[in-house]
């Protein structure tokens, strides 16, 4: 095994065998699995968490069947939490029942000379907003139909009046043939935010990891022993490769946890949790297909960006003599990563912004911005590829010039004329 490969293996081994790596991955895996399956988990444990109510209807207008039908058709209606019964008891008896039981709701429907019908509700402790809205909506529907029928309209007239106006959305761009529904944009935003957050944190982790590793070797003077055995170029490459590989392993593990979580979700008894529904909705949208199409580009983009940030972090770490100095010096790098992050979020708000489109071509920022714009249908695949090419070129330039500073920096323990020394190193070949 050559020395560079040995350093890569050692560095990777050190990270993966650490107790922190194991602990954090167990925690993250559990967190993802629990989040995706939270609905099922709640159901498994069971419990009296449903607020059951009995709705007793004292119908003085004879509209109960219609009222009941309207309630059943309401999207918020849950038969397990609300039962409807028509009652013929006296109002006083019913009121007395309601006074003694919090689960009872009494609805009295009467005719109203001014407003066709009116409803009066009696409860012990109040009415929930959902139940109030369902009752109100059902009564409104009855009132509306009664009002329309009093005008002598036929059922087809009523149907025509009630039917919604159709609004077809068509995109005429040559690059995009499929029509995209508005709701897809919302889901696309969710996917994009998840994508941005994951990559943003991975890049930050990479920068800090490579910086602290080089800094540790330098401050302990172990660097002198290492560099006396391995070329500075090989040392930097070993650090870049090991840290990049580690980041990719970590990313793959996150995907694996997501996959395991979704497998468990599919096998679960009850899949109606918010996250489950959301995942199902996302899976059925165009955004997933779009993302799958550009996976190779995303992977190359991600790797080259990781490498660029790894070189920059390594170069900065080589210039510093303590971890405190590195923390200060990495601030501009964090800003650079944050610019990509915030602009990607802003791209969802300022749709079609020319400035954001221009910035999406700038290397180091483009890795989040360009794919985001593409996933949001704001740029074409050609634009994405141009951004990638510019990033690849930038990576080679950063490596070429960064290496010059690195060679000089790793053996420099003085802070005097630091920047002068580094600029001088840039000129040296």
């Amino acid at each position, binding site marked *: 095994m050559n020395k560079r490969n*040995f350093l890569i293996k050692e560095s990777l081994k050190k990270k993966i065998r650490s107790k922190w790596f194991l602990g954090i991955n167990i925690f993250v895996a559990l967190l993802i699995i629990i989040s995706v399956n939270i609905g099922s988990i709640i159901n498994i444990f069971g419990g009296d968490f449903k607020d059951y109510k009995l709705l007793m209807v004292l119908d003085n207008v004879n509209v109960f069947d219609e009222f009941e039908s309207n309630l059943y058709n309401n999207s918020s209606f849950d038969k397990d939490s609300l039962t409807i019964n028509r009652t013929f008891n006296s109002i006083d008896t019913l009121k007395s029942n309601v006074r003694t039981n919090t689960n009872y709701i009494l609805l009295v429907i009467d005719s109203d000379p001014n407003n066709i019908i009116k409803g009066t509700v009696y409860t012990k402790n109040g009415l929930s907003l959902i139940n109030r809205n369902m009752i109100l909506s059902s009564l409104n529907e009855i009132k509306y139909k009664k009002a329309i029928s009093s005008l002598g309209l036929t059922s087809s007239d009523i149907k025509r009046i009630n039917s919604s106006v159709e609004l077809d959305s068509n995109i005429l761009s040559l690059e995009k043939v499929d029509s995209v529904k508005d709701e897809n944009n919302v889901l696309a935003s969710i996917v994009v935010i998840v994508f941005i957050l994951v990559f943003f944190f991975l890049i930050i982790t990479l920068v800090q990891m490579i910086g602290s590793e080089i800094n540790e070797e330098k401050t*302990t003077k172990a660097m002198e022993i290492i560099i006396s*055995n*391995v070329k500075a170029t090989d040392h930097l490459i070993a650090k870049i490769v090991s840290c990049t590989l580690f980041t990719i392993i970590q990313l793959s593990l996150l995907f694996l946890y997501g996959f395991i979580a979704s497998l468990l979700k599919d096998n679960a008894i009850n899949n109606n949790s918010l996250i489950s529904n959301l995942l199902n909705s996302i899976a059925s949208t165009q955004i997933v297909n779009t993302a799958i199409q550009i996976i190779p580009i995303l992977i190359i983009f991600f790797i080259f960006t990781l490498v660029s940030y790894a070189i920059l972090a390594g170069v900065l770490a080589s210039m510093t003599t303590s971890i405190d100095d590195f923390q200060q010096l990495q601030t501009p790098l964090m800003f650079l990563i944050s610019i990509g992050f915030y602009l990607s979020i802003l791209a969802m708000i300022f749709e079609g912004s020319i400035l954001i489109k221009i910035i999406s071509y700038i290397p180091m920022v483009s890795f989040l911005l360009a794919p985001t714009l593409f996933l949001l249908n704001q740029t074409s695949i050609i634009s994405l590829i141009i951004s990638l090419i510019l990033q690849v070129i930038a990576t080679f330039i950063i490596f070429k010039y960064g290496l010059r500073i690195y060679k000089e920096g790793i*053996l420099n323990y003085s802070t005097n004329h630091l920047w002068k020394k580094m600029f001088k190193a840039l000129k040296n070949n």
Partner: protein
Amino acid sequence: MLKVSHISKSYDKLKAVDDLSFEVDKGEIFGLLGVNGAGKTTTFRMIIGLLSPDKGEITLDNKKIDYSLTDNIGFLTEEKSLLTKMSVIEQVLFYGKLKNMDKNTIIKRLDYYLEKLDIKDYKYKKIKELSKGNQQKIQFISAIINNPKLLILDEPFTGLDPFNVNILMNLLREMAKSGTIIIFASHRMEHVEAFCDKLIILVKGKSILQGSLKEIKDGYLKKVIHVIGDINIKDIKSIKGVENITNNNDEYIINVSSNSVASNIFNIIKKSKNITKFAIEDPTLNDIFIEKVGELNE
């Protein structure tokens, strides 16, 4: 043989090493002396290939030192160069593998040296848990684990008690006997004097004195005379060439400029009574170092 030929290295306007040349044969122990900032570390860095000289050349067995030769070089830095989160075995394996050694050989040699330095119980301990002296021993083992042809030691005895210094010196002498070239830097002149066959003194990157210890001492004309007895200080002070007289527990220490002055002193002292000691000694390396470096720094 290590051959350093007319090497120079500058950092901006500062000349760290200026036209330095020396040769060290197989089995020799060579001392590199100098005050802080004299150019020792830069010289070491050039020898092990960390820095390229602006001028001149360094060869080991007639081959220019580069990464193809570094597996045969051992280097112990002045400051700790240990990754303290590692255990002893992990650290030595790491440095050994950087020298292209196989795991079994490294462990075999590590066990041998741990036993020899009486720290075999620390094999699996974290380096940060060890005392300063034991950390120095581990650093020393890491430097010699590859049984190097050329061993460079920058202050190797830092933090060690006299007993352990002796153990390390014996180990180094054994290595020298088996042909290892040892270059050694220390501020402790008694270590250099007791240990080095040849030495060089650097001031501001330049060699001001070099050769074997005997040659250096012979070339240094000044002598130190130790006398115990009743002597006439005035008469002795009046002799030309007497530089200084001090008294330490009834013993007079007379510094003279040459051997002939010592003869004149002896002629006067032999007339005195109750003389129980008269000894002419060479000055210590420390005396020579202080005077030579002092002259150039003035």
